[in-house]
């Protein structure tokens, strides 16, 4: 909604106890900032708050005598609203670190503010690879995924199977532009070509006009450089306009578990895309998925939720080790410490702020293959951590020497 509705829900995760001397005001305050009411709310939203609380619990903050609080706000996908919340949190509410922040436009703004204020920012929701490229910051870590990784995973897989001419439907803001740019690079590098592109406003209901343009281009692949509700509406209407029946294939460049759930397997089956987390990977992820769903209206975790969980866990480990919540120092410590959590396994954070872990190339199951609710993916390939993300030297980040 257009009205300003910054809802702040605070939760005290740990009872009293003597906090470490150098933790400012005795409390570690974590702000979860994301889309709480619009097209990205199911794949981030309150689920990210649930994930953050689970991380605090699993870290054992209460037992260790650390007091950790979670705040939440809805940025409504507006960079100005997100910036205002970030400033308010850092200046007035004494928030130490901000997590999640889907919507690349908002994330880039919050990253800059965090740097100015010397705090800590761990991105899970936003996608643009610029966060660890030309806009990288000593105060920002990009955890879960990025546009380069999506392009590299999905783009490569599709070009290899003969999809060498593309038409892009692109969400018209920082994220869509970055995803289109990174995918186009992969397509061109593999000898494919891009026949056209059209940029649609964020949160578009009707894609028929754009789909018609895609159809007229005769491209083999219609690449959807958008996310959330935009992707599901585009996929739904593409089937109505006979895009796939006409011989063209859809490439959802960023698709989340909740999108597949919203579309239903009937419409989503066969889609191939890249994720970094799926709840049904191993015993630990299944246990997490089950616990998370119970606390989140039955909705299973997306990779963004998993990233918030793992990010908060690693952040708290660094704060504990440093006995300080100074943002710049904590981020440096997080980069120095190898990561280890039940969802992404062992990994590391590079100097440019990029967290690296393996990526999964998944295919959506046919309705007949799905055995249980939320049983949606077949994992076709695992891309090793060192190949999944853009090489550090190619990003143009000033922190890389």
């Amino acid at each position, binding site marked *: 909604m257009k009205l300003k509705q910054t809802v702040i829900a605070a939760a005290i995760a740990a009872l009293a106890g003597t906090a470490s001397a150098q933790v400012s005001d005795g409390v570690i305050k974590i702000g979860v900032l994301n889309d709480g009411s619009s097209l990205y*709310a199911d794949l981030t939203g309150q689920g990210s708050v649930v994930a953050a609380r689970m991380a605090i619990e699993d870290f054992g903050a209460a037992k260790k005598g650390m007091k950790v609080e979670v705040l939440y706000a809805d940025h409504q996908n507006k960079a100005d609203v997100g910036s205002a919340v970030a400033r308010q949190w850092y200046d007035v509410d004494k928030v130490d670190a901000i997590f999640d922040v889907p919507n690349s436009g908002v994330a880039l703004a919050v990253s800059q503010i965090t740097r100015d204020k010397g705090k800590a920012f761990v991105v899970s929701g936003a996608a643009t690879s610029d966060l660890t490229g030309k806009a990288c910051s000593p105060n920002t870590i990009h955890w879960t995924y990025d546009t380069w990784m999506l392009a590299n995973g999905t783009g490569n897989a599709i070009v290899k199977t003969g999809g060498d001419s593309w038409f892009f439907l692109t969400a018209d803001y920082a994220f869509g532009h970055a995803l289109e740019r990174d995918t186009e690079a992969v397509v061109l590098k593999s000898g494919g070509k891009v026949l056209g592109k059209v940029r649609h406003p964020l949160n578009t209901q*009707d894609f028929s006009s754009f789909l018609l343009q895609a159809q007229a281009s005769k491209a083999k692949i219609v690449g959807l450089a958008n996310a959330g*509700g935009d992707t599901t509406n585009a996929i739904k209407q593409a089937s*109505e306009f006979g895009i796939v029946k006409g011989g063209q294939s859809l490439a959802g460049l960023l698709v989340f578990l909740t999108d597949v759930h919203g579309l239903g397997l009937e419409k989503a089956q066969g889609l191939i895309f890249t994720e970094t987390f799926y709840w049904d990977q191993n015993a630990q992820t299944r246990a997490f998925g089950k616990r998370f769903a119970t606390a989140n209206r039955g*909705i299973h975790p997306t990779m963004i939720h998993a990233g918030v969980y793992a990010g908060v866990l690693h952040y708290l480990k660094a704060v504990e080790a440093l006995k300080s919540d100074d943002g710049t120092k904590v981020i440096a410590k997080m980069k120095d410490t190898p990561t280890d959590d039940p969802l992404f396994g062992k990994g590391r954070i590079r100097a440019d702020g990029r967290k690296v872990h393996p990526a999964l190339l998944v295919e959506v199951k046919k309705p007949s293959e799905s055995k249980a609710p939320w049983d949606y993916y077949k994992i076709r390939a695992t891309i090793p951590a060192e190949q999944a993300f853009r090489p550090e030297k190619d990003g143009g980040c000033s922190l890389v020497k």
Partner: protein
Amino acid sequence: MRAPFRTTAMDSIFGVPVQALFGQLLIGLINGSFYALLSLGLAVIFGLLNIINFTHGAQYMMGAFVAYLLVNKAGLGYWWALVIVPVVVGATGVIIERLMLSKLYKLDHLYGLLLTFGLALIIQGLFRNEYGTSGLPYAMPAELAGGRNLGFMFLPNYRAWVIVASLGVCIGTWFVIEKTKLGSYLRAATENPALVQAFGINVPRMITLTYGFGVALAAFAGVMAAPIYQVSPQMGADLIIVVFAVVVIGGMGSIMGSIVTGFALGLIEGLTKVFYPEASNTVIFIIMAIVLMIKPAGLFGSQK
């Protein structure tokens, strides 16, 4: 790289092939059908009740949700939904009118606007809590699945049905209000309720039913939308702003104005999506600003 079509010498306009343009115009007409259906309901309610019904978007969304619930809880498909949903959602409108709106007729427009806006927020919030925001799938009725190749474009059968049904409902409504005896009572009641009441006509009940009818139109549009858009709690919130612009451009309360403007703006928006897609969600507001400067009462409105 903006225009995705390759320019050929003869058969193109500004680099867009004429055939593709036909397709885009048809698409514009389909979207215009939704604008017309929704702005018609708003115009009926404003014209006859003087209420600016901001709940309209939420009622459109409720229409889609009730259709979804009918198929999933009661096994009643699309065609049943087309009949049942407007009645059910219209009935909630009647309750809102009786319990709340009827208290506000003597007050300034602003109070009705605030009440209906608040109701919209509450209804959307409730649905969001219950169903999340990813949207729910609603199957296309089997009779209207598939489509035909028109030569210049692939037209899904369902979209053709949307144009036909929406035109039928719009013209029917216009006819009832402008050309029948019932319509003349309605129009008379808005001009001078006391006099009409003196002729033995139950004006409050007529007003209540009119509101219910306006709401039913929104719900009908919601059912029409369910198979092509995701059924989601915010589906009406984004649309309603555009529809208000349509009503303002057409002239508040003008029935014919809202229908014609709805279809026309659908066309203009469709063309924008070809020539400059980035502006497709602002073009309607630009037109609104221009129209308001030149004709403050709207294209079909009369200055009172």
